């Protein structure tokens, strides 16, 4: 059987459409999702198939439609909320953090929020600082939610299906920069479970840990470093909550060196959390402290060249790996 190759965005669309066919309680709402097929064409054809009752164009009101969807989820529906950009979710911080993430807890386990918030996260598209947020570190701090970041088309479909079937609120972070990438995606139903990191490249000298789009730069760096005789192992964490620290620890115990690549700012971040846990569990195995690669500590520049220099990029990763492995 030949491999079916499709785009990342179509994999997301398939996940939503298949789940909506299977479960009448699932529906999609957000800005531009229906008539316009989504600002990034992820919901292409879904209005035609499911009609305006289940694919709902909302006014520009992130706080409003998130809050309403949370109410629907509390009453047993399973909404998928599309944020055109996670940057815009900031105006909905109260409903998504205070209501969605705490509802099960505050109702004493009576009713939770089976809801998926999904959309574009991260910089790299020359969209300016207010529109280029990497929200993972900001939101992952909040207990009660799950957070998933798919890297390829296969995971995009499998992880989104898991997210939709999950009874907890899932923050599903997609990267606009990855939407047009292609990969093998099976036609048949499958899911990718949460909390299982994926070793995407085997190596012996240094463990690179990342999530989502920065993995792309990890691969580039690994190729570059291979020429210098440094063999990197690359771990795709896949989900931040839950975090599969075991797979990461196992790898670091083998390589004795670790670099965490995180596109958010460094202070109190995913990178600092992962590094802290690796230090704790691999204290006697590490030959050097865990190195971290982040975006620079400033708002995202708008100019393309400055933006690329600001983000975790191949060059920054190579330098960190060389330093972590004493190859400077």
């Amino acid at each position: 059987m030949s491999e079916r190759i499709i785009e990342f965005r179509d994999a997301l669309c398939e996940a939503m459409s298949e789940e909506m066919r299977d479960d009448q309680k699932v529906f999609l709402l957000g800005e531009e999702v229906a008539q316009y097929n989504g600002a990034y064409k992820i919901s292409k054809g879904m209005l035609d198939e499911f009609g305006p009752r289940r694919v709902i164009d909302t006014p520009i009101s992130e706080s409003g439609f998130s809050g309403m969807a949370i109410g629907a989820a509390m009453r047993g529906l399973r909404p998928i909320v599309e944020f055109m950009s996670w940057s815009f979710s900031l105006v909905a911080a109260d409903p998504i953090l205070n209501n969605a993430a705490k509802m099960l807890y505050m109702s004493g386990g009576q009713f939770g929020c089976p809801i998926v918030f999904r959309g574009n996260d991260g910089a790299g598209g020359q969209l300016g600082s207010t529109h280029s947020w990497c929200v993972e570190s900001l939101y992952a701090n909040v207990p009660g939610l799950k957070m998933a970041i798919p890297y390829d088309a296969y995971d995009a479909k499998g992880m989104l299906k898991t997210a939709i079937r999950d009874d907890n609120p899932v923050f599903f972070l997609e990267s606009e920069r990855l939407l047009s990438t292609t990969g093998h995606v099976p036609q048949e139903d499958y899911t990718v479970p949460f909390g299982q990191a994926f070793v995407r490249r085997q190596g012996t000298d240094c463990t690179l840990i990342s999530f989502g789009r920065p993995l792309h730069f990890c691969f580039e760096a690994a190729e570059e470093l291979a020429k210098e005789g440094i063999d990197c192992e690359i771990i795709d964490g896949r989900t931040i909550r839950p975090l599969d620290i075991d797979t990461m620890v196992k790898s670091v115990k083998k390589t004795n060196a670790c670099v965490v690549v995180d596109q958010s700012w460094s202070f109190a971040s995913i990178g600092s959390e992962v590094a802290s846990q690796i230090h704790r569990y691999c204290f006697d195995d590490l030959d050097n402290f865990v190195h971290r690669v982040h975006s620079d500590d400033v708002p995202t520049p708008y100019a393309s060249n400055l933006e690329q220099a600001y983000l975790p990029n191949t060059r920054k990763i190579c330098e960190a790996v060389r330093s972590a492995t004493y190859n400077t």
Partner: protein
Amino acid sequence: MAAQNQNDKKTTSSEEVFSKNTPSSMNTSPIDLGQIEVLQILNEHGEVDKGLEPDLSNEVLLDTYRAMVLGRAFDSRMMTMQRQGRMGTFAPNFGQEACIIGQVTSLTKNDWFAPSYRSFGAQIMRGWPLEHLMRLWAGFHDGFPPPKNVNDLPFSIVIGSHVLPAVGIGMGMNYKKKKDCVVVNYGDGASSQGAVSEALNFAAVYKAPVVFICENNGWAISTPTKKQRANQTFAAHGIAHGIPCIRVDGNDILAMMCATKEATDRARNGDGPTLIEAITYRMSLHTTADDPTVYRDEDEVKVWEARCPIKRFETFLTNKGLLDDDAIKETLESCEEEVIAARDKFYAMDPADPTEIFDHLYESVPKELQAQREEYLRRLREKGIDL
């Protein structure tokens, strides 16, 4: 008891709720807001309503006309430069020139203006040099902040998030007992944001000297106005908040100028905010990342082509003897030349210092950030970027 006595002079929130005229039977029929009348002084054929025509000098009329033509010339050149890859994503203002320029003609240098990303026609009038706006849209770091002597806010891309700060500026003016005012514009789309309702309420309660201009251009990207509100007007939001409101033909520059003048006068006199719904039309794209032909009926665009704000003002000025065919041609040519000159100036400007992105984050640069700045600089140098 002492506490009760102290409270004697205080009002209570319920004192006027139960009037003596409480009706014997409850009136359960909803209030019909109906249509709010639209102010129009210059119709789409350029015919003026003599009874409403404002007393404006020939100089003001011609300056305003030129500002509109310049706005359109800038728009058109920016679209070309964007398609050439010289600009980032750009939001054109084509067809909304009267609406945007009429908002700021009654403002002084001391007043504040909170623009949205489609407001460059007004920004130019407020004193933004054209090449400064070009640097903004091309992604130069120094292009985004307003020029030093201009009381404008930088715009936000998160829809509606600039409206509350604009009200805050107005409340600050009251606090300092200044007679200045703020004009803030937002779109039909932004009117759905909770923050915009909060802004209207605060401005009304605190009588902030703010003029809200809801630019109803028919479309929030692909979402038409009818999907954004159930009542018939955006002006009605003013009624709900206790703010005097009016609807204006946003393609009629005279109506926009008159309505804004009256509203800014009210604000300066301590009479609080006004909401103006300006009815206009987004003739072009939402931004250069958009293609409206996939969701919008071209016949609708044709209807609005006939309502062109510049054309009707030209007819009016020609009938007044202030313009003729030669003068129209000369104005257009001089505006295009001004834009080209700005473009050339923009091309000739020194490249920005790429380490500027580390500036102004704090009053002084913290040492951790200084270290990052040096690292960043080193990488750029190694990459061979000319500094």
